[in-house]
């Protein structure tokens, strides 16, 4: 599953948010429970206070001998004044108000009873008054028990809250620790690895790779970094190679001059000797011809080197590959007809232009065409085909998981030259681009042609493939150019 850094950070914040919300919820639940107990307690305490006052009032009445009608009237007044006190109370919560409403109702009943008492008293004397005091006393002790029970309940709630808070804090610490470890593993450690790898690369160690197996931007950064170091390595190698080749080119030009001058003397000397009388002698003639031929061969080799030296600079322009092929075919038209070779072209119309040096790419095609013609001395078929190809893929990095979205797309211009000639011996096919390698033995030229071709192709960042045809005889040369600027 792909989790990008924003998702990770968002996820962690979401967890924190949920945790805070759950703490609020727990706090709210316990707070409500606590408030309930507090309300209960307050209610009971108020009742106790009122009962206490009632008890005092009854005490005053009972203390007097012979309860009279007036005494109950006094009681009724006192209860009424207590109801008045209740009316003045401010309530913090609905439950509190509800509880007091109930108490008020009870007192009204009590007042009602007190007001009825003179009538009852007149009938039953004051026996009930004593009973009433006794009942109030019982009620008082019951209320006291209730109060202590409420107190214990409140303590329980406090303990619960403390426990929940402690668990919450521990959970928080664990979560923060996990977040630290998680971010360390997925962000800071890979970044430190990248930093040290970048430092190593900066010192010139292009073999340094980072190993980040993450499906996020940092993983992608790691893969891109590895790709970049590969690119840097190639670029550096190319730069070193270019410098070397520049040196070789200079050397070649110098050597060419130094060798060609003595060759000129040798050639003139041979010409002079061939005009001398002893040149009529067969052995002398053979020797003089040998000198001339050897000088010519040395000159051809030097020319090959010079040609190679001059391939190091490109005159790059946007070119139509088909017109280069057509032009090259025109140049070898005579040889093709002479060798009785039929040409079959299948050139893609409106092919995108490639960035190339016209002369050098023409040289490449001429070289392959000449090779094809040479391989078909008794006639044959030459098939030339161009086509474009789109290639997509993912960055090929073993350190990187491939399912991630790190794709590239490029367009390629492909040219194929296929002949029905001799083909190449399988044991030498890998050697044909080596300088001075020739399948023609001493009869051949300087054997630098394919070496130069390879250099030209490499300088164009193009690819080249030569293979023997499997089903029929002959060989196929494939040239693959990248179309620049293709997105």
């Amino acid at each position, binding site marked *: 599953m792909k989790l990008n850094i924003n998702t990770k950070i968002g996820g962690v914040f979401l967890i924190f948010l949920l945790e805070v919300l759950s703490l609020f919820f727990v706090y709210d639940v316990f707070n409500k429970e606590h408030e309930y107990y507090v309300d209960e307690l307050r209610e009971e305490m108020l009742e106790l206070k009122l009962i206490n006052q009632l008890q005092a009032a009854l005490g005053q009445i009972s203390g007097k001998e012979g309860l009279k009608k007036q005494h109950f009237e006094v009681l009724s007044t006192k209860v009424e004044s207590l109801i008045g006190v209740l009316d003045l109370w401010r309530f913090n919560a609905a439950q509190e108000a509800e509880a007091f409403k109930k108490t008020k109702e009870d007192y009204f009943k009590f007042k009602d009873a007190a007001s009825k008492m003179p009538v009852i008293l007149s009938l039953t004397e004051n026996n009930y008054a004593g009973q009433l005091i006794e009942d109030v006393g019982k009620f008082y002790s019951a209320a006291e028990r209730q109060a202590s029970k409420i107190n214990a309940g409140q303590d329980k709630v406090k303990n619960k809250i403390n426990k929940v808070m402690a668990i919450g804090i521990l959970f928080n610490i664990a979560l923060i620790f996990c977040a630290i470890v998680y971010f360390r593993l997925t962000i800071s450690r890979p970044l430190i690895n990248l930093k040290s790898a970048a430092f190593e690369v900066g010192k010139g160690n292009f073999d340094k790779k980072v190993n980040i197996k993450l499906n996020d931007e940092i993983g992608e950064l790691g893969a891109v970094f590895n790709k970049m170091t590969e690119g840097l390595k190639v670029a550096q190698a190319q730069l070193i190679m270019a410098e070397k080749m520049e040196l070789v080119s200079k050397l070649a*030009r110098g050597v*060419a*001059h130094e*060798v*060609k*001058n003595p*060759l*000129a*003397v*040798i*050639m*003139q*000397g041979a*010409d*002079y000797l061939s*005009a001398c009388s002893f040149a009529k002698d067969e052995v002398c003639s053979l020797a003089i011809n040998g000198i*001339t031929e050897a*000088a010519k061969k040395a*000159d051809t080799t030097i*020319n090959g080197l*010079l*040609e190679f*030296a*001059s*391939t190091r600079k490109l005159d790059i322009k946007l070119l139509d590959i088909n017109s280069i092929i057509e032009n090259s075919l025109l140049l070898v038209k005579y040889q093709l007809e002479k060798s009785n070779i039929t040409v079959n072209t299948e050139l893609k119309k409106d092919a995108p232009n490639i960035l190339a040096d016209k002369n050098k790419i023409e040289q490449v095609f001429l070289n392959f065409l000449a090779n094809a013609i040479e391989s078909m001395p008794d006639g044959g078929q030459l098939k030339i085909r161009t086509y474009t190809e789109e290639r997509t893929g993912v960055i090929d990095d073993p350190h990187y998981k491939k399912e991630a979205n790190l794709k590239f797309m490029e367009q390629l211009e492909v040219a194929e030259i296929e002949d029905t000639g001799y083909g190449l011996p399988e044991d030498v096919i890998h050697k044909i681009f080596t300088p001075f390698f020739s399948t023609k033995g001493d009869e051949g030229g300087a054997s630098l042609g394919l070496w130069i071709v390879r250099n030209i192709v490499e300088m164009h960042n193009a690819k080249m493939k030569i293979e023997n045809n499997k089903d029929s005889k002959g060989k196929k040369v494939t040239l693959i150019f990248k179309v620049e600027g293709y997105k």
Partner: protein
Amino acid sequence: MLKKKILVVDDQELFTRLVKLNLEASGEYEVRTENKGVNALGAAKEFRPDIILLDILMPDMSGSEVLKQVKADPFTRSIPVVFVTALVKKENLLSPGGTIDGQPFIAKPARTKEMIECIEKYSKKRPSL
């Protein structure tokens, strides 16, 4: 018929000597050799050749410099100059009939036959007597 006069300028003495021998062996040419670039203009003025075969890379004065002097002097301006050089670039080799500094050239090492063809092609046509 008068022999064609050829001035060969090259710092390699052996080369100029052999060229002189080979060309003069045909009986058609009168060859004068010069091994120093700085003396080339004087020799041309004095010898008044029909063609100058000129090396490019010489230690005292380059062939290009000699060419400039020859073309600047009203007495020698009309003399055709052909470079004979080992400093041939690939582009020149690929296009026969190409030029160096606007002049035709013969690439070293060249056979006497090639030299004669070139001389015949580029030298001043002498009015037949």
